[in-house]
């Protein structure tokens, strides 16, 4: 039986087309994927991301534990700072990608909804010393408010000044009179915030946010546009672009892999070897040269030879072109390389482009 988030009644009321995702009943779309996508790129939209997993970690050895379990260096985090990171298996394969928050008395890990149970078990299996861990997914609701008008909109109902919050930093304050954690994060390429709200007060925040955002034409956004927005930024989707068979270096996530951090991390030895020999394949951005839409699992060719496969593909609503992420052999991965993708039995021209596909996002550096 699939679960619902605290916002389910609002999704139904807004005419959301409900699908099952990560074990939850969530809206695929409301008005339509394309108009919702443009709304986030031009003004502001709200995503219910309560299906994401939220795990609190605390104790005297919590930092040491997180540093052992994740590839990024959590010791560099200041209180209220967040970082994108990855958890690996000993063979370098990816357990999950996640966001790590350092808060005054604990760490908060935000993981993919579909991996929540797996990640929690993986973390529990590796506990050592004085570390406490609690999965608080059901107690906390999560909203992403994204778009160039996100700050203007959210400021209207926030008790604290949002403008000093930097990208990947957080603060605590009242939103709609409710105590929430407000972070300047998101997965769309636009400026925006994610709100962590006590589940029982979630609807109050939703309703006031929608009322406050009316002048900016705020609207709820479904999973469909969430996918096209993240793909235009080359943000990886677990299960498509990364999984246990891929490693963060070939996925282009080397920027969150600190191979020489003191104490190492699970998977470090294998990844050091991969880094030394260079990954055999790379996750690249491909842009179609004609009106064809690449889809996951399709084959990619260079000079007639198969060299890889598509992991994510769609029509980019911003560029009005087919775009894809694909793992291809390193030799063919440089920007400008012309390749073909077999779509419905026909080879269509594609070119390797530099990430992101969409370069005009309002995201704060």
């Amino acid at each position, binding site marked *: 039986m699939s679960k619902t988030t605290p916002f389910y009644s609002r999704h139904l009321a807004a005419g959301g*087309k409900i699908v099952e995702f990560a074990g939850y009943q969530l809206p*695929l*779309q409301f008005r*339509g*994927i*394309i108009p919702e996508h443009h709304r986030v790129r031009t003004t502001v939209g709200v995503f219910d991301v309560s299906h994401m997993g939220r795990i609190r970690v605390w104790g005297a050895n919590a930092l040491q534990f997180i540093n052992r379990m994740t590839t990024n260096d959590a010791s560099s985090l200041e209180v209220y700072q967040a970082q994108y990171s990855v958890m690996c298996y000993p063979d370098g394969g990816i357990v999950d990608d996640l966001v790590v928050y350092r808060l005054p008395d604990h760490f908060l890990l935000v993981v993919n909804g579909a991996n929540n149970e797996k990640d929690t078990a993986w973390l529990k299996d590796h506990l050592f010393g004085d570390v406490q861990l609690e999965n608080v997914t059901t107690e906390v609701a999560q909203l992403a408010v994204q778009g160039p008008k996100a700050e203007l909109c959210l400021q209207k109902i926030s008790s604290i000044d949002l403008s000093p919050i930097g990208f990947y930093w957080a603060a605590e304050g009242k939103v709609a009179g409710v105590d929430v954690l407000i972070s300047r994060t998101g997965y769309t390429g636009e400026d925006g915030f994610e709100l962590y709200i006590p589940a029982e007060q979630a609807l109050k925040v939703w309703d006031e946010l929608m009322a406050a955002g009316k002048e900016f034409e705020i609207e709820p956004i479904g999973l*469909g546009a969430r*996918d*096209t927005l993240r793909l235009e930024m080359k943000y990886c989707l677990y299960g498509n672009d990364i999984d246990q068979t891929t490693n963060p270096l070939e996925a282009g996530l080397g920027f969150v892999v600190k191979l020489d951090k003191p104490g190492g991390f699970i998977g470090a030895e294998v990844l050091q070897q991969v880094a030394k020999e260079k990954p055999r394949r790379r996750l690249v951005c491909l842009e179609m040269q004609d*009106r064809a*839409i690449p*889809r996951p699992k399709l084959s990619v060719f260079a000079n007639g030879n198969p060299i890889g496969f598509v992991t994510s593909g*769609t*029509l980019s*609503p911003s560029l009005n072109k087919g775009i894809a992420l694909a793992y291809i052999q390193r030799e063919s991965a440089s920007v400008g390389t012309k390749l073909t993708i077999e779509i*419905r039995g026909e080879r269509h021209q594609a070119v390797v482009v530099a990430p992101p596909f969409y370069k005009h996002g309002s995201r704060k550096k």
Partner: protein
Amino acid sequence: MSSIPADLKYTKTHEWVRVEGDIATIGITDFAQKELSDIVYVEITALGKTVKQTETIGFIEAVKATSDIYAPVSGEVIEANAQINKKEGDAPAMVNRDPYGMGWLCKIKISNPAELSTLLDQEAYTNLVQRSQHH
């Protein structure tokens, strides 16, 4: 609730058929366009070809997925809706806006009228859609 007109025939693969003389006009149903959502590209690959019932005659690209179009009846694919089969602009979105009208896809010159009796009527297709929605 999806619109399912009484004067059309339907397939299990969610095409509709309007028969006038020996010409069948074909489209996809309101239910199908809602399932696909934002349609961005339509191509009738079998234009000018003689096809058998249930053969693929083209495809529809929506943002999230690609879907085949199947011939509801055997015959020659004699016309594709030029307004929809455009590679530029948002013309294919007409299939979303008006699936039974301006958003028709193509026409087939029927070679075996007996096949029409194998298609679903409004009641049978309504039952099919209701089952699809409650699976």
